[in-house]
């Protein structure tokens, strides 16, 4: 016994191998430091799917498992009477001690909040397996320290004897050291048993850890038996670890190997492997049906390796006596067991971990591998340090025995009573720990809701009292039949991100096949009724769906009736008394989206948010900060800082590029380069040579030539200023752009109108139907804008700053706008029987024809200009509609008000004069003729404004001329020079001769929609007797309606020249296009 007493080793610490270990340790720790400074992401491959990597699988799980040599050797040597194995005990305990120390160190790098590592000591969570692991590991580390302390104190005392470095200080504490030594010796047996118990507890709990993840751990490893298997495999690896250490230590320290000792230890190994294998295979057999070997190929390979190399091979090897007699074979067999257990831990924690939804598999990063290797190397360094300086490894020979006896000389022998006291205290301490610990569990069992008491139920938000007065808004704008505003102050009080939705019955009625019951599914029988009657049930047996007028055909007074609003029944979702009733928001959305999703044309029946709701612009005051007075470009830069994509969007728009696709331009259908830049009109002739005039109408600094790409040059305020103070071209020092930027909002009519109301160079000059009066129009000026205050973009729908609608002479298309988008293609039915005849007109006549009987009703518009008269001084201008008839810069002008349009067939396509096109100067040149005729089914009779001009042309080449006005004509009124400069600016040659030619230009009419009673009556176009009901319906009693005699504009004669339009005469007599309907037949002569 004494011949194998542990002794210090008289060898230098540093060897070449040591330096290699130091390098690896340093590299690993540097990665660890990087992790502490930068977080886990840069160093590891961990993610939300794989929260645990090899730092847990190897550093912690394998580290704990491989330290099992400590408790197994302690058990056999101290408890089960295998006293001859005592020489192996100290190296095993040292390995365990250092192993657990390294587990703790490694954990500090893996824990996200490592500074909270002490928390489990105070925040006990008895349900947590990890808590059990953590507490046991902490406790066992303490126990191991106690078990190690005799060796440590002996080593220190030996330093004193040998007078080695530090012996002077140590000599001063020798007495307390001795005292401690004797105490430790007294309580050691208690702690040895405690170590074994603690080890069994947490070795198994490491297996329980993964029992909580049944959906993630592969079926090859997942079993509720995992704790037992982990415990058994830890026991299995204990002795092979001791054998391995012993062999390596003896080789490394140049000592002779006592093969008999480790050989006899190895005899136990096959039995333990056998027990483990029995449970492992038993478990696999019992779970046979669950096992899925084909699910994950890599898992199956690792599983097979673990079973064959880690269990079966060492089982055979350790059973062979020849193996137990050979150092090399023992080494091999031990390595197989160790490798098998390491593989098992890695398999359970990493390889067999298949989290749902993971996109990629986890593989450790360099940093993870480096730290793991570094910690292992550090462990070996520490082992070497302790083995050299402290009596750990068993020596041989008498010298060692004598030395081992030496420390005992100074140790005071405790009286038996003191021994009992110390042991009692230690036992009581342990017992107290156990009692406290089980108390935690008992508490956790009995009050698992304990956690729920920590956070008390806060008061539920009070249910808002339903204020019916809040519903006083009439969803329907006064006296406007078809437009409804879907809004709810009740809903807005919670979240209000959007303007109310405008809803028209007309389009929806048509699309719902005139079935009112789709939306009005129940009818409330009184103001208090919140359930109502089912509308379909009420009409059982009656065909509710009648084409055209539907409900109105029976309920003639329906339009005067007051309807129950949706909000009478629906207000909040999931009401306690009737949870099945959905709330108001859900009711609206499900009704709308439910149908919209089924509509084939998503452009007309969208189901995304922005197409029905206009977002409310939040107050930007808190979002913006400017230093000093911002310039328009400062404002733009600030806008683009948040609205990053908007700048790029705008650079693609026609408003920015002034050119784009023109599919409706005859002969240029596939062009994308036509636009305001390169066209010629007869108002201000051409834009390109006059950049100053022109840029005032652009939404930013006009790009020099085609498509600039600098978003910083966009002028956001010109469209989005709501203060009305911003004007382009005014020095910004006079403007309060800070306030303008803070109050930024959706464009109003004034914003759009700041350009579009001034087309042609002045208010209302070009567009007969648009003028500055449209900022605040009277109801009779325009029913949309004047009566229900619609904004431009309500019709000219916007998507990514691309705006619906197109100019007539520069027809760049981004999206389309049309009356039928809201009103439907049969909008007159609600008026009654005669409505069907009016609906028929929609097939041949544009809506504008009847509903805009006159244009320029709000302000005069220019009807003609004679440029050849420009440049005269001293002409006394006359006034026509308060506008001068002569302007030196433009020549003679005429003006019009309440102008009756010119009517032409128009199928949507048109011609347009392009610079360089040849003209015939002997005739009037039509710059942009609408195309279409009566035979074209797409064409409709459409109203136009026609503007006459006398404008310059290059009489040498017979092409229309571009003119430079600013710093050109207006400087000296030299036409030749002005045209020469103008033609140069547009890149055309000039013959040097200027002539003047008559031109005509068409502009389509869409705005100034008159109220219904001011739109055309039958007799405005037809002779009343031609459209009298009795002509066709002679036999139907009561059919004669006074409507056919209605004539709203008796002063206008010959509004429609039927012969010029291609008819033989009045189509009511001769047959128009809608008599093509086979059901009708021809009208009686």
């Amino acid at each position: 016994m004494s011949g194998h007493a542990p002794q210090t080793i008289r060898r230098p610490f540093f060897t070449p191998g040591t330096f290699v270990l130091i390098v690896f340790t340093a590299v690993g720790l540097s990665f660890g430091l990087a992790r502490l400074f930068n977080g886990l992401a840069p160093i590891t491959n961990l993610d939300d799917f794989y929260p645990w990597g090899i730092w847990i699988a190897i550093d912690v799980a394998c580290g704990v498992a491989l330290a099992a040599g400590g408790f197994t050797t302690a058990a056999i040597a101290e408890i089960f009477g295998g006293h001859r194995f005592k020489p192996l005990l100290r190296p095993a305990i040292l390995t365990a001690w250092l192993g657990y120390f390294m587990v703790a160190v490694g954990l500090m790098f893996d824990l996200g909040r490592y500074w909270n590592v002490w928390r489990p000591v105070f925040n006990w969570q008895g349900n947590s397996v990890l808590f059990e692991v953590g507490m046991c590991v902490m406790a066992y580390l303490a126990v191991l320290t106690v078990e190690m302390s005799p060796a440590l104190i002996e080593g220190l005392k030996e330093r004193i004897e040998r007078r080695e470095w530090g012996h002077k200080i140590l000599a001063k504490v020798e007495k307390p050291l001795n005292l401690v030594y004797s105490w430790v010796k007294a309580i050691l047996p208690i702690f040895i048993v405690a170590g074994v118990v603690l080890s069994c507890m947490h070795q198994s709990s490491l297996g329980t850890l993964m029992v909580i993840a049944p959906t993630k751990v592969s079926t090859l490893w997942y079993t509720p038996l995992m704790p037992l298997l982990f415990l058994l495999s830890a026991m299995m690896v204990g002795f092979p670890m001791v054998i391995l250490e012993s062999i390596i230590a003896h080789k490394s320290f140049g000592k002779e190997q006592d093969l008999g000792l480790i050989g006899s230890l190895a005899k136990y190994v096959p039995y333990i492997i056998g027990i483990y294998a029995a449970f492992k295979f038993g478990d696999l057999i019992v779970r046979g049906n669950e096992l899925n070997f084909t699910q994950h190929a890599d898992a199956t390979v690792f599983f097979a390796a673990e079973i064959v190399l880690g269990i079966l091979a060492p089982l055979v090897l350790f059973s062979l006596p020849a193996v137990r007699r050979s150092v090399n074979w023992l080494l091999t067999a031990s390595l197989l067991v160790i490798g098998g257990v390491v593989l098992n831990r890695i398999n359970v924690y990493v390889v067999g971990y298949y989290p749902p939804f993971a996109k990629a598999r986890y593989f450790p990063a360099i940093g993870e591998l480096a730290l793991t290797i570094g910690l292992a190397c550090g462990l070996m360094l520490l082992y070497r340090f302790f083995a050299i300086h402290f009596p750990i490894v068993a020596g041989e020979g008498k010298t060692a025995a004598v030395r081992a006896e030496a420390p005992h000389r100074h140790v005071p022998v405790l009286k038996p009573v003191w021994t009992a006291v110390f042991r009692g205290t230690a036992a009581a301490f342990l017992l107290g720990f156990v009692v406290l610990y089980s108390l935690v569990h008992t508490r956790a069992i009995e009050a698992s809701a304990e956690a729920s008491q920590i956070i008390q139920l806060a008061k539920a938000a009070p249910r808002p009292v339903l204020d019916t007065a809040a519903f006083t808004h009439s969803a329907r704008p006064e006296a406007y039949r078809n437009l409804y505003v879907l809004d709810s102050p009740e809903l807005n009080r919670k979240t209000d991100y959007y303007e109310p939705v405008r809803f028209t019955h007309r389009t929806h009625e048509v699309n719902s096949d005139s079935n009112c019951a789709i939306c009005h599914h129940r009818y409330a029988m009184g103001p208090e009724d919140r359930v109502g009657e089912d509308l379909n049930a009420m009409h059982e047996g009656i065909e509710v769906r009648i084409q055209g007028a539907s409900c109105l055909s029976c309920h003639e007074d329906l339009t005067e009736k007051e309807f129950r609003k949706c909000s009478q029944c629906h207000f909040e979702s999931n009401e306690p008394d009737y949870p099945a009733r959905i709330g108001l928001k859900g009711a609206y959305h499900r009704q709308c989206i439910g149908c919209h999703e089924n509509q084939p044309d998503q452009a007309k029946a969208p189901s995304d948010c922005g197409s029905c709701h206009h977002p409310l612009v939040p107050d930007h005051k808190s979002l913006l900060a400017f230093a000093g007075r911002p310039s328009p470009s400062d404002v733009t830069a600030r806008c683009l800082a948040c609205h990053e994509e908007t700048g790029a969007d705008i650079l693609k728009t026609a408003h920015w590029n002034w050119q784009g696709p023109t599919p409706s331009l005859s002969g240029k259908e596939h062009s994308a380069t036509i636009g305001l830049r390169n066209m010629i009109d007869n108002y201000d002739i051409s834009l390109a040579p006059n950049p100053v005039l022109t840029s005032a109408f652009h939404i930013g600094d006009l790009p020099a030539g085609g498509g600039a790409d600098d978003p910083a040059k966009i002028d956001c305020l010109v469209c989005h200023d709501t203060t009305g103070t911003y004007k382009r071209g005014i020095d910004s020092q006079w403007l309060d752009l800070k306030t303008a930027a803070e109050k930024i909002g959706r464009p109003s009519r004034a914003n759009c109108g700041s350009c579009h109301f001034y087309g042609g160079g002045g208010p209302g000059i070009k567009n007969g139907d648009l003028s500055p009066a449209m900022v605040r129009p009277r109801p009779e000026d325009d029913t949309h804008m004047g009566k229900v205050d619609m904004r431009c973009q309500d019709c000219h729908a916007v998507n990514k700053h691309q705006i619906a609608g197109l100019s007539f002479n520069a027809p760049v298309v981004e999206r389309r706008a049309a009356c039928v988008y809201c009103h439907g293609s049969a909008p007159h039915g609600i008026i009654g029987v005669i409505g069907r005849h009016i609906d028929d007109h929609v097939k041949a006549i544009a809506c504008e024809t009847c509903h805009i009987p006159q244009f320029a009703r709000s302000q005069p518009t220019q009807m003609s200009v004679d440029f050849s008269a420009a440049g005269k001084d001293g002409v006394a201008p006359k006034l026509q509609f308060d506008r001068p008839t002569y302007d030196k810069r433009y020549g003679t002008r005429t003006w019009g008000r309440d102008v009756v349009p010119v009517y032409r067939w128009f199928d949507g396509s048109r011609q347009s004069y392009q610079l360089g096109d040849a003209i015939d100067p002997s005739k009037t040149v039509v710059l942009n003729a609408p195309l279409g005729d009566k035979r074209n089914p797409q064409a409709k009779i459409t109203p136009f404004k026609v503007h006459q001009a006398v404008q310059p042309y290059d009489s040498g080449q017979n092409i229309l001329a571009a003119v430079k006005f600013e710093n050109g004509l207006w400087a000296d009124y030299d036409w030749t020079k002005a045209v020469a400069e103008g033609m140069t600016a547009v890149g055309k040659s000039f013959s040097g001769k200027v002539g003047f030619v008559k031109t005509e230009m068409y502009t389509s009419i869409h705005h100034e929609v008159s109220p219904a009673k001011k739109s055309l009556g039958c007799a405005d176009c037809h002779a009343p007797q031609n459209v009298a009901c009795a002509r066709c319906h002679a036999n139907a009693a009561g059919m004669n309606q006074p409507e056919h005699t209605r004539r709203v504009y008796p002063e206008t004669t010959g509004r429609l020249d039927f012969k010029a339009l291609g008819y033989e005469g009045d189509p009511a007599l001769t047959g128009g296009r809608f008599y093509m309907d086979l059901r009708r037949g021809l009208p009686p002569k």
Partner: protein
Amino acid sequence: MSVSRRAFLLWTMSAAAAASAKASSRPPQTEEKAPPAGTDHAGCLADTTLCIGCRKCEEACNSRNALPRPDMPFSDKTAFRSARRPTDRAFTVVNEYPGAPSRDLNDRKQTYAKVQCMHCLTPACVSACIVGAMVRAADGAIVYKPEICLGCRYCMVACPFQIPAYEYNEALKPRVRKCEFCSNTAGATGANPACAAACPTEALVFGKRESLLALARDRIQKRPDRYLDHIYGENEVGGTSWLYLTGRPGPEVGLIDVPMSSPAHKTEAIQHGIFRYGIIPVAFYGALGALMWRNQRKEKKESEGNPEGERP
């Protein structure tokens, strides 16, 4: 020698017996804690047949929890091109799955399903947490207390639905992030969570879990052609606060198959089986201690008999 071997076997067997006692002490159904789903237990019902994929819930969640704004605006439907999971920057996400949401909605080409913490009645994360940083509030919300969290991420391993996310880029104070049922803002526990309040079609309905179950059953009964007769979350992992109604099998829309009892039951049964009143550890300790005492005494006698310490 023979004695010690027998003793060793005995010891191994007793250890094995103790360990297997833990394993076999999985409790019968009666011992399982009844989920504390009282009348005040909050829940949310998500109806995947009504979800239109507008992502308003994501937006509302983002602003209520003051999360960083994502690179793409919430109106951008290209987000659906990839299957997303909740992250530390988004506690809830909506995913798009090809195919109609139910048999009677043939016109629709996509199904949308929202993902967030299910707020289990017997949550594995709460059971797993080493210090109790994951807490089940009285109304059923699973809330997180970062101040005592260690950052061990065991909750992420434990969650059967793969929900908790972690701030891996945070060096010093990383947090586990997940939906907390909007209960972390002051006094809002039990109030409408932001996502449900924002849902335009009421595909998400917040309320008492009991009444939501009744509502769900009512819908299934009234529309048997639309809904599968199954409320996902009623029994999954022992019941969850969030309930899902679907018109197609759950796994097709991201509602994975999970066990019908909480995984936490198993681990807690094992743990409490061993440590109930400390009986097993103390008994184990006592047995080992007695064995040690006997063997030590024997050795003492032997060494007294053989003072030279010679052994065969």
